[in-house]
């Protein structure tokens, strides 16, 4: 190529770009560009990795589950709604058998029909180790939610029954995390997950178009989506991994992306000054400390309550520039399960008196904390603040700072392996009552078997949770879950500190986005221009 020809090409390209026209294109495609916090594209083969960000941007975009989360409003906490199942109920003759009636007329992106055979195939691939489509990573990723499934059977083309190992009134919630992939597409990819990852097919509101690993995932609108209200109002969704918060903010301000996840509170005033829209909403997130109930001073409820009285939550919210809510329980106050628990108002004198009564003044405790991590917000300054507040009330807190992976290891192994830690700072998702409450209360979950790091045990809690699992009337069950939360707080099972409000920054050219009170968000209503 001669220099003159090259110059001509460059000039032509620059002219086209300045007009916003793609040469040869009939019309200007609307592309929603989103900067994720993940460092790589979440897995596209069904159950995503990268935590709930993977569910948010790949799971619920490409795929559907039997139940879905209602993400259409931001006024109340999201609840489940019909997804690929239109109805579900417990078998009147067997309280360990859930029946799901499936949505008819739904097709996968590859044209294959969705039906009961597909549901059976998907649940079996995720639960049976001898299944032809078994994949250890997929199995492990969802095992916590499938562990009580005894088997699945097809009743007719659009009805399935899932048999449970024990009575579980909350099981339908777990189905909202299990995605249905196309058996046809998987087999067309040679039954190879690596090949299928580059040609995935679900029933979700977006179809896969192309992926450059570690760089971009391009999805296009599924204009034939079964829920007409959720057909995307843009043509293409471009997902870009951008783990560095400063880079995400700069990319938004430079016009390279339209929406960024989790801008740091420090950059939000700058983004607002540049005309960006900041959206926030409380969501089921809990930033606090799980405690060791066996080896150290937190075995005494007075010390646990003292720690909770020592926390000045308003000061914490102020340090986070207001992008957080004070945490007086596992759930945020707006949650339907919050109830009317004991309120630990900031009272350092009361904390000191409780410590004195417990014979632990000054009270030496060691906290395991991380430098960063999913949902950990700004762990170092936040832990420093908590430490200074507790020290002022009579504690002597030692912060043991570690890598996020190490902290996960501490959390998974539990106090038998790590008795030296009196508390661990791991933020938690509260998307369902098991994740938010029960796993920290049940004896069966004592680490390393489950999430009960510090081996909390209470006969009252055991009985209450058993009753919840056996109660199928939703109103009665919700009242019992609320009771469990009140017990959680009065027993000071955690040190409650704050709840994230999950800020996002959007270009002013976007409209239609409603931030749901959820870990998941619906991008389909977003359009360009002030039309909504």
């Amino acid at each position, binding site marked *: 190529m001669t220099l003159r020809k090259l110059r001509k090409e460059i000039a032509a390209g620059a002219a086209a770009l300045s007009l916003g026209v793609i040469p040869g294109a009939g019309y200007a495609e609307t592309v929603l560009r989103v900067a994720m916090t993940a460092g*790589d594209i979440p897995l596209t083969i069904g159950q995503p990795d990268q935590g709930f960000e993977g569910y948010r941007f790949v799971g619920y975009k490409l795929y559907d589950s039997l139940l879905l989360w209602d993400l259409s409003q931001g006024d109340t906490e999201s609840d489940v709604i019909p997804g690929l199942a239109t109805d579900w109920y417990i078998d009147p003759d067997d309280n360990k058998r859930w029946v799901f009636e499936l949505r008819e007329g739904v097709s996968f992106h590859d044209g294959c029909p969705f039906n009961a055979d597909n549901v059976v195939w998907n649940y079996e691939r995720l639960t049976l180790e001898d299944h032809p489509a078994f994949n250890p990573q997929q199995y492990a990723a969802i095992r916590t939610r499938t*562990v009580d499934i005894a088997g699945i059977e097809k009743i007719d083309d659009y009805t399935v029954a899932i048999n449970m190992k024990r009575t579980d009134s909350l099981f339908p919630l777990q189905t909202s995390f299990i995605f249905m992939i196309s058996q046809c597409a998987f087999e067309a990819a040679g039954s190879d997950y690596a090949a299928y990852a580059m040609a995935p097919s679900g029933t979700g509101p977006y179809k896969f178009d192309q992926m450059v690993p570690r760089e971009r995932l391009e999805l296009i609108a599924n204009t034939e989506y079964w829920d007409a209200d959720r057909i995307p109002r843009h043509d293409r969704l471009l997902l870009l991994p951008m783990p*560095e918060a400063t880079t995400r903010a700069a990319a938004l301000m430079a016009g390279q992306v339209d929406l960024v996840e989790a801008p740091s509170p420090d950059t939000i005033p700058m983004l607002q000054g540049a005309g960006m829209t900041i959206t926030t909403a409380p969501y089921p997130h809990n930033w606090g400390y799980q405690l060791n109930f066996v080896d150290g001073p937190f075995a005494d409820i007075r010390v646990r309550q003292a720690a909770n009285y020592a926390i000045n939550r308003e000061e914490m919210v102020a340090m986070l520039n207001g992008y957080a809510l004070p945490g007086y329980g596992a759930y945020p106050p707006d949650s339907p399960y919050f109830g009317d628990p004991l309120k630990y108002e900031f009272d350092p004198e009361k904390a000191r008196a409780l410590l004195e009564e417990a014979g632990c003044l000054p009270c030496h405790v060691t906290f395991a904390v991380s430098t960063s991590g999913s949902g950990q917000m700004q762990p170092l300054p936040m832990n420093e603040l908590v430490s200074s507040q507790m020290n002022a009330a009579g504690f002597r807190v030692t912060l043991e700072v570690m890598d996020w992976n190490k902290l996960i290891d501490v*959390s998974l192994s539990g106090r038998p392996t790590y008795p030296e830690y009196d508390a661990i700072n791991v933020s938690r998702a509260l998307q369902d009552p098991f994740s938010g409450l029960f796993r920290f209360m049940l004896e069966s979950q004592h680490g390393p078997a489950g999430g009960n790091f510090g081996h909390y045990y209470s006969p009252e809690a055991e009985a209450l949770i058993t009753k919840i699992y056996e109660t199928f009337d939703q109103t009665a069950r919700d009242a019992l879950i609320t009771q469990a939360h009140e017990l959680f707080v009065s027993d000071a099972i955690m040190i409650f500190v704050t709840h994230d409000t999950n800020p996002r920054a959007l270009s002013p050219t976007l409209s239609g986005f409603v931030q749901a009170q959820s870990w998941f968000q619906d991008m389909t209503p977003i359009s360009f221009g002030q039309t909504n």
Partner: protein
Amino acid sequence: MISYIIHRILYAIPISIGVTVFCFALVYMAPGDPLTRLLPDDASPEVVEMMKKAYGLDKPIPVQYLIWLGNALSGDLGTSIQTDRPVLNEVSKALVNTIILSAVSVVVAFSVAFVLGTVAAYYNGHAVDRLATGFSVLGVSIPNYWFGIVLIIIFSVQLRWLPATGMGPAGSDGFSLLSLDSLRHLVLPVITMALIPLGIIMRTTRSAVSEVLGQDFVQTLRAKGLNEWAVLNHAVRNALPGVMAVMGLQFGYLMGGSILVETIFTWPGTGSLLNQAILNRDIPVLQGTILVLALIFVATNLVVDLLQTAVDPRIKRT
């Protein structure tokens, strides 16, 4: 000379193996588990054991290493624990992107630094020398990740002249050195990457050229009536071998040390690949990337040695 090259290539084998053993040990000494990022945060011990078995992590560490080494010698670097993608594909793609960034940075840093260093040496003690020396001190002192962010704020956010992140609208697949848009994406990361080697090479060049200019033969050249350009030409050629050695090292550092710059600019090279692999404890990706980078470092030094010989025949390689 040929036997020297063969010797150097043979030396690369124990060096590479040593690097991989060291890295393998480091990953296992570091707290945390390669599976923690894959598993839910309340995975039961049974599921953890099953996953360890599935990924071969249940075997003793030396056995794991030997299996990996055996596969690597046959050209198979394994598959990523995190993504299930072949490591060879991941590394080769990322390597191309890093080479693009490093090579352009090297050309910029070396040419600017060499000119500035030579000028500073020639005007030793003058204002221009002090200015150039100050510039080089800034280069080696400013943290490049901070400098990168400042450049983004000025040129991408405020002035909107240059893009802040990525390799272009179509990513690395659409990148071309002949495309204006691709080149625009290259500008800020290149300036950021070039900053440190620019400072180091400038100081090295200044010192080397200055030393040569003080030698007796330069006086002789001037006494013979050579003009100053010719004198400087002689001085530079005499100073070049030492400067080239530093340049080679800097190129190696740029190839392996771009983690921060690639993370800031979301440049999908080996730096960001390593960063993610470290965070995820993705041992196959970590091992594969480090092995390839170590081999490149060794090869770069060999090439520099050979170039030094070509430039200065007094250096004998036997």
